[in-house]
């Protein structure tokens, strides 16, 4: 009878891992049913390799992530592999799954994760670490890689957090460091050939896969520590295992996979639109920004290819909005041409264009005027530092005159809402840097009243200040920098607040800031070592997960966990680290040199700015990748 059933995909028969009873009692049950437009259907029996791709947060967040969609497309191009998706069950379902012993399942086939060959987890932010444990727990996979047996899936990780994977190293069989487009085919080829030839065993595969560039197998390395707690040595256990793991970069973006038929969720995703990644990397070199360092060199996608992607994505999804994605869209050289095309095409189709990360100037205002309702939309500046001194420290090349000029233009164009983003707790921050934040907001408000005559004003100007607290990240010039106590962060936020109330235009300004507790934990994870794993495990046992969600963050449980594990969080956050300190992540070669980062750290202390990649090469070391901005005509050394 096989013939009839074999061809039919399980989803077509309406198979669901969760019973009606469960689905009827959880919030947004459509998170768990799969079957979205764009979902790839294969018969699991027809493939050798089953890969479950996990974003360890709720469906709506995970579905908004472009990276997974790129790799979902790429992996599923293989005939011997079926890549499916899995997200963190929301706490209501989590409780039911625990109580009723329901195993975690993938959306496509609705099969248990334990049936899979791989569980790949993308690590986009540190606060998802307990959710990684939730996923392993519900999937019934042992937390520690060393406790896993032959039948357990290989658990691998990728994404920005892998640039210091050490706090979660115990939980992963391997990490892939770099852009997944480059090496995953080799990883699958290796796995497939070992399976086919019968030479596969978990340990043999992990040993072999460690030879693939960018792959880091934590269990194959030994870490030792100095008496002061810092890392003294980090060495491979075997001579064939590389001592340094080199980040892999896709240098041919135009010919690499792109999801031209992206998934269309039923439940409204956080990013409910198609996303056009126009560029990877950033030329700017802001010293706090990990993405700006990690994703070098800046690589622009070909504008003709992007036009084609835009059309095919809109056709395939029926989405009514398209968003450009990059770290700094204004630095994409073909932006005017691309926007002309999109405005024309999207007007015809009644599709909205969303333009984040645009520098405010005459050009962008003109574009925004065409695509958005000026009365309702706001213009955004991210000066990050309040004073020019602080902006020099962080190498943010935005001046007060740039901002005021942009704002003036915007006010003339009819805008009345301005959003300002800053960070507090940047290295060497002084009180005058803090008070400069509301002072700048006040200047902008003043600029409105000076620019727009009373009879032409459409009410009051609204300037919104948001501050977050700075977290030093690996592979940035600030990786040596100390953080501050929570009480100190609060004090600084209050300085901003008090000063704001005394501004002349106080009534036009509002201020929001994030709570500092999560920031400090993020700081521990960002620059922690392998000893943090025990704390994460302890906190999960105590009930911590969804830590990125304020309503689920329990500071008291985390405090207890650190104490019970005998780990001092301040060791990781409060010290200014000596320049020669060996970091837990030093075994990774991310492309930029330690010498460059040290130079930048020194220059920040001297308040000296460094030119962006197009103004001149600063020798960060990334030229060795042989492409991108380093080889643009105007930037030959």
């Amino acid at each position, binding site marked *: 009878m096989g013939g009839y059933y074999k061809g039919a995909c399980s989803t*077509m028969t*309406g198979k669901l891992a969760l019973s*009606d009873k469960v689905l*009827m009692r959880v919030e947004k049950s459509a998170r*768990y049913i*799969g079957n979205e*437009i764009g979902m790839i259907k294969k018969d699991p029996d027809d493939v050798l390799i089953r890969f479950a791709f996990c974003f360890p947060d709720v469906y709506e967040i995970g579905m908004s992530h472009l990276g997974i969609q790129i790799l979902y497309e790429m992996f599923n191009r293989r005939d011997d592999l079926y890549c499916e998706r899995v997200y963190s069950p929301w706490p209501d379902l989590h409780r039911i799954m625990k109580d009723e012993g329901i195993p975690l399942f993938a959306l496509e086939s609705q099969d248990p994760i334990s049936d899979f060959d791989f569980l790949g987890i993308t690590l986009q932010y540190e606060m998802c670490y307990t959710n990684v444990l939730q996923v392993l727990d519900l999937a019934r996979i042992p937390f520690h890689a060393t406790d896993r047996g032959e039948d357990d899936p290989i658990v691998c990780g990728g994404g920005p957090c892998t640039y210091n994977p050490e706090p979660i190293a115990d939980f992963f069989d391997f990490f892939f460091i770099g852009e997944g487009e480059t090496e995953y085919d080799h990883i699958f080829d290796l796995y497939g050939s070992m399976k086919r030839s019968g030479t596969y065993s978990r340990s043999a595969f992990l040993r072999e896969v460690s030879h693939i560039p960018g792959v880091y197998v934590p269990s194959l390395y030994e870490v030792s520590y100095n008496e002061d707690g810092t890392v003294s040595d980090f060495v491979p256990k075997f001579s064939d295992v590389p001592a340094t793991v080199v980040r892999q970069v896709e240098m041919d973006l135009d010919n690499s996979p792109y999801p031209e038929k992206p998934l269309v969720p039923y439940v409204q995703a956080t990013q409910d639109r198609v996303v056009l990644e126009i560029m990877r990397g950033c030329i700017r070199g802001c010293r706090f920004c990990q993405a700006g360092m990690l994703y070098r060199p800046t690589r622009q996608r070909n504008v003709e290819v992007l036009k084609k992607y835009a059309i095919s994505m809109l056709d395939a999804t*029926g989405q*009514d909005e398209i968003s450009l994605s990059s770290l700094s869209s204004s630095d994409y050289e073909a932006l005017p041409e691309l926007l002309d095309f999109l405005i024309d095409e999207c007007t015809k*189709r009644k599709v909205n264009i969303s333009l984040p990360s645009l520098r405010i100037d005459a050009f962008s205002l003109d574009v925004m005027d065409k695509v958005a309702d000026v009365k309702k939309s706001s213009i955004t500046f991210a000066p990050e530092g309040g004073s020019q001194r602080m902006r020099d420290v962080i190498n943010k090349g935005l001046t007060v005159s740039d901002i005021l000029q942009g704002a003036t233009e915007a006010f003339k164009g009819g805008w009345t809402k301005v959003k300002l983003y800053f960070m507090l707790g940047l290295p060497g921050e002084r009180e005058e840097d803090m008070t400069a934040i509301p002072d700048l907001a006040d200047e902008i408000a003043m600029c409105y009243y000076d620019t727009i005559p009373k009879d032409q004003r459409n009410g009051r100007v609204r300037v919104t200040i948001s501050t977050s607290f700075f977290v030093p990240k690996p592979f940035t010039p600030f990786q040596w920098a100390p953080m501050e106590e929570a009480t100190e962060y609060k004090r600084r936020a209050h300085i901003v607040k008090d000063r704001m109330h005394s501004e002349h235009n106080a009534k036009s300004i509002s201020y929001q800031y994030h709570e500092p507790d999560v920031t400090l934990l993020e700081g521990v994870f960002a620059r922690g070592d392998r000893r943090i794993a025990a704390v994460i495990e302890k906190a999960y046992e105590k009930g911590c997960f969804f830590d990125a969600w304020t309503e689920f963050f329990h500071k008291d449980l985390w405090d207890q966990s650190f104490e019970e594990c005998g780990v001092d969080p301040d060791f990781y956050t409060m010290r200014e680290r000596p320049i020669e300190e060996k970091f837990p992540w030093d075994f990774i070669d991310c492309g930029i040199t330690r010498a460059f980062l040290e130079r930048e750290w020194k220059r920040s202390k001297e308040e000296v700015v460094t030119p962006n990649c197009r103004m001149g090469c600063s020798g960060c070391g990334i030229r060795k990748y042989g492409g991108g901005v380093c080889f643009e005509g105007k930037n030959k050394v």
Partner: protein
Amino acid sequence: MKARIKFEKGGVLRYVGHLDMMRYFQKAIRRSGIPISYSQGFHPHQHMSFAMPLGVGVSSEGEYMDIDLEEEINPNKAVDDLNSHMADGVRVISFRYLTEEDGNAMSSVGAASYFLYLKGGEGLDGDLLMSYKNERFDGKDKMLITKKTKKSEREIDLKPFVYDFRLFELDEDYSKKMQSLIPDYETNDFRLNTGDMGIYLLLSAGSEENIRPDLFMKYLTGRKEDWEYLPFGIHRIDLLKKDKDGGFVSL
């Protein structure tokens, strides 16, 4: 030019809620190239309105929405174009142009017909239902129950709004049809086999007095649970409007 689209919804898609379903159709219409008309302004939206929301978990073979079109298209082709862009579980049944006499879908709904089936393992069976019917429905002058909405709580008499209520045994055709619409019936122990007891309801719906089938079943069984905990599944058969003679016809 206005057209009315009728569709059915079942399979795993019955867990997609009303708002998500609206967004689903907005995208499906774009994908299928139906020349729907849009509002003016910076964020144009499609001229589309649904006759009545369908609850999460409820299947239906009689859902309706009205759309405004920029130009006339062939109705059969419209059905095919839409169906080639549907997810498994949703199927467009018909597409017809509205005439002067047709009101808009939402305001013309006067009644809804339902088939309710038993969900197993909850101690509710055909005999018990029969006794409830004898006791609380047949020959009753008043059927009082408290109706709660988000805004208010009031006691109402269901009697004038329950147009029909019958218990029946599923015949083979109906059983097969329901099984295809809810393919996971067996794993969930839904009683959809030939001979299983089913409930037919015709209830007042729409703006005048909207009676949900679970409200009636709460009255009938005396149960107090929220509807997602009640031991029967709901399937909407059709949405109807009053015709000239006071009877009901399909939208």
